[in-house]
């Protein structure tokens, strides 16, 4: 496997602020890689370091085996889909998409043809003559993607590309981006603060906090085996409880993460709990229950008989589902 982007001990400081702090990372070619984290966690700065808009304070970045420090953005085989799309307002859609080709001195006929092909890939053929201001948010987003892929980069960077779209459109774009990545076969590096987006789209996820990578792994790894309390809480929601409480008797003072859907409502042989509150969420219902002084969140199917507030219920979980957290974070 070829490594497309590699970070070794990369730091980016702004005065005293450590935006990116000793990040080690290696992203394989053709991978859909997500950088997930709360705002200010350094994920966007990492993306800008790959694009070349920022230079590392220390450390080393390689893009396809070549040193990236000191290489300007316009010499990198990397293109970016910007958060607010950054379409050129004074050009029409075709000119926007063909911009990179125009810069490279490709004839107007050929670049219009290429731009039209890129627009087709994002289902926007025929929109070439319009101005960015005449398109909806979702359409602009597609144009931004088309403009980046028209350049045929080896790595595509996406900076919160779906952040400004409404839920329905976001889900649709997630599918389309995933499909596009499969068709093109190039590396996608995707920055998001939306854990659902990262879980559903990425091959691998890096979870960022305070400029550091907390955990890297497949979506399943990250969700089922969070290594720290931060990851357990940030990716999905979690009940953080003591190991002995969860039924793992051997570890006394360590904490474990227990996912809400791991807790089941049972008829017998369970722990007794009182329902504190409920929130109905359509297909499922979230219950906040109390069992021997511990508050737990659990999720049950709405089509089963829903318990009332204050009702005594029996709950149970498989201790195997509880995942040990390391103590560092």
């Amino acid at each position, binding site marked *: 496997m070829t490594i497309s982007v590699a970070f070794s001990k990369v730091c980016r400081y702004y005065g005293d602020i450590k935006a990116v702090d000793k990040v080690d990372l290696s992203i394989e070619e053709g991978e859909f890689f997500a950088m997930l984290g709360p705002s200010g966690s350094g994920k966007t700065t990492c993306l800008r370091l790959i*694009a*070349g*808009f920022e230079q590392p304070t220390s450390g080393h970045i390689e893009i396809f085996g070549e040193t990236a420090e000191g290489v*300007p*953005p*316009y010499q990198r085989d*990397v*293109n*970016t889909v*910007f*958060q*607010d799309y*950054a*379409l*050129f*307002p*004074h050009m029409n859609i075709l000119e926007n998409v063909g*911009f*990179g080709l*125009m*810069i*490279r001195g490709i004839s107007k006929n050929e670049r219009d043809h290429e731009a039209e092909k890129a627009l087709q890939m994002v289902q926007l053929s025929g929109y070439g003559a319009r101005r960015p201001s005449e398109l909806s948010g979702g359409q602009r987003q597609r144009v931004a993607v088309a*403009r*980046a892929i028209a*350049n045929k980069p080896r790595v595509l960077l996406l900076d919160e590309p779906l952040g400004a779209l409404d839920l329905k459109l976001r889900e649709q774009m997630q599918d389309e981006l995933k499909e596009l990545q499969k068709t093109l076969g190039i590396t996608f590096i995707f920055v998001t603060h939306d854990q659902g987006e990262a879980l559903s789209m990425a091959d691998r996820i890096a979870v960022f906090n305070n400029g550091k990578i907390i955990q890297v792994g497949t979506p399943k790894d990250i969700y089922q085996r969070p290594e720290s309390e931060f990851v357990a809480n940030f990716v999905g929601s979690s009940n953080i409880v003591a190991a002995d409480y969860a039924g793992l008797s051997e570890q006394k003072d360590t904490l474990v993460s227990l996912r809400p859907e791991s807790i089941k409502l049972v008829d017998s042989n369970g722990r007794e709990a009182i329902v504190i509150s409920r929130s109905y969420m359509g297909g499922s219902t979230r219950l906040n229950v109390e069992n021997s002084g511990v508050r737990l969140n659990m999720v049950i199917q709405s089509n089963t008989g829903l318990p009332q507030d204050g009702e005594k219920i029996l709950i149970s979980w498989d201790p195997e589902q509880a995942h040990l957290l390391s103590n560092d974070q």
Partner: protein
Amino acid sequence: MTDSVIYAPQRSSSVSAFSDYCWRNPRMFLFLLLLPPVLWLGIIYLGSLFSLLVQSFFSIDEFTGLIKHEFTLKTYRELLHPANLDIVVRTVSMAIIVTIAAAIIAFPIAYFAARYARGKWKAFFYLGVMLPLWSSYLVKIYAWKLILAKEGILNWFLAELHLTWLLESVLSIPIIGGNSLSVSYIGTCLVFLYVWLPFMILPLQASLERVPVNLLEASSDLGGKSQQTFRHVLLPLAMPGLIAGSIFTFSLTLGDYIIPQIIGSSRLFIGQAVYSHQGIAGNIPLAAAFSIVPIIIMAFYLWMAKRQGAFDVL
């Protein structure tokens, strides 16, 4: 419940009755708000311009020196007389050169102010640009006359640097050169440039400030080197500011009559021609016809700019 106080709106004075009326009739309110400025603009401002236009179609009787109030194109024929046409060409050329030079000098300053200057530096920028506007126009021009004169500080400074030969070779260029900078077109141009530069910097800075940084990054990301980003992204987006600034520098140069009178060769500019024709000569129609020239040129300039799409981004 019984002792709770209700704060009902007071409707006693006529002022509040009027304010209520305005709230209910927003169109009437807008009309009242716009009436004074429209009267000013319509009657005093545009009215006098119109009267100027009318004056230019009258003519002067050479024998009596009286104005004949009947429609004629005689004054415009007089305007096309080589001596008068010379004045127009001289003024327009000067205005073009001053505008281009101002744009070239103003761009980096405006770009720095828009992109990099923050806090204290921004205040310093505004102060630096505006400060010259606070002092008297005449004082500044006379100061420049002293700076540029043969015995002036610039000559002395160049002599100290043993660069007198450079100044002399520049001054020996025909037409734009002369005895010293203060009596040459170069001098006139320098002073125009100094006086009108803020009017180019400020609108340019405002338009550059509105260009999002990520557009420049996007261009660079797509392979654009600095000069390509400048040509294809920054310059087109800064065009409205550049046009606004050039309208100031161009029209102010077209109309000025003091700078060419104090600094430069004693050949006339449009402003001086207007001044002398309406004054001692009493030839109001020709003065009016001269005044129409800048208006026509500016109208043509704006029309061209619009056709080139300079205002599309607005």
